[in-house]
């Protein structure tokens, strides 16, 4: 799952290295528009619908956080 997420992130913002252990939001690697694009990509790749209340920066600030968000919304 992590590899797929990094692939999606890199497609969105190819200028950044998403394998780095940093906060993507605080570092300016993802803004709010990237986040909604990311939500759309994840929903179509993983066949899920992410709850609107989960569309928060803290749920998309790292690969681990994104994994957790996907798992939570798969249930």
């Amino acid at each position, binding site marked *: 799952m992590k590899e797929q997420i990094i692939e999606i992130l890199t497609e969105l913002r190819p200028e950044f290295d998403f394998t780095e252990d940093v906060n993507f939001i605080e570092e300016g690697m993802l803004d709010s*528009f990237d986040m909604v*694009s990311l939500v759309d990509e994840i929903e179509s790749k993983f066949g899920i619908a992410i709850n609107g209340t989960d*569309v928060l920066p803290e749920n998309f600030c790292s690969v681990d956080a994104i994994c957790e968000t996907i798992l939570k919304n798969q249930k």
Partner: protein
Amino acid sequence: MVTSFNNKTISAIYTVLPTHEVDFMDETGNYSFTEAQMKKLKKVMGFGTRRIAMEGETVGDYAVYGVQKMLEDEVFKEDEIGAIIVTTTSPDHFIPPISNIIQGKFNFDEDVVCIDISQGCCGYTVGLTYSFMTLNSLEGKKVLLVSGDMLSARVSTRDRASRPITGDGVTLSIVENTQEENKIFCSLKNDGKDAFAVYVPAGGTRMPITPETTKEEQDEFGNWRGKQHLVMQGDLVFNIIINMTPVMMEELLSKSGDKMDDVDYFICHQSSSFTLKKLAQRLEVTEERLPRDIVPKYGNSSSATIPVTMCEHCGRLFADGKKKKIMFAAFGTGMSLGAVLMDLKKPICKLIDYPHK
């Protein structure tokens, strides 16, 4: 707080839109997006075409044109109107109110109540609630409710957060008492702590517009704005909408004794396609029951979007000729939220183009 009203209805809705159309995909040079990002956002956010008023055109101009058309179509007679209520955040002038301008252009009675309400995205639900309240004191008269905005003049052309969704438009609704049994429930909520989540810094008394305030500056996301331009904290607004709107709807349903499944249509303020998709998912309703196709076609015209949606979909919504239970819901500037739950027969609906000079 939930308020309830008896035996009132919306008998007609007219929408007046600019014919001038702009396309997000033609604005590549305005925003700090790559072409790939623009294509993606077109799909996800609904950034498409928008109707934009020409410089100098006002809400009052469009409203007067709409009234002319309604009179020509014999939707109402001037002496039937007891109140003119206008909801907008785009006043023609500081003084006089738009409602007085409209009253003065026609042969309305001199004792017509004229009220301008400063409300944006939530304007239609606020306007409906005030119309119902006013009708309680206006036996035999009708309310002309004008809801519209011309915010494109207030949004920087280089603001990628707000410009791609902002459209202009003005709507006119005739709200009246009816002999038919019809219980209506309304809820208006406000969270003034977040009042500056949608904000125009300059142009009022606090900060008059000067050459200094009109200098455009770049923010951390690459948007260029002057102080006379609208600033929106989109993420905060989104979270308030997603969290508060279902609560407000549930509150109305518990008062009316209805369930979500009893509501035929959810006609919501058309903020963005993404927000409405997430709201529909949260409410577990289909796009057919909660339309979200107005922003990509006409843009977000603030307090006008609910009646614009009604005019766009009127034929489909009332295809079987029966009354429908409709939940109107809106959210935005203030921060304000409003919802109205009512049964509605097919109103006279018309979408007309404004003849630019």
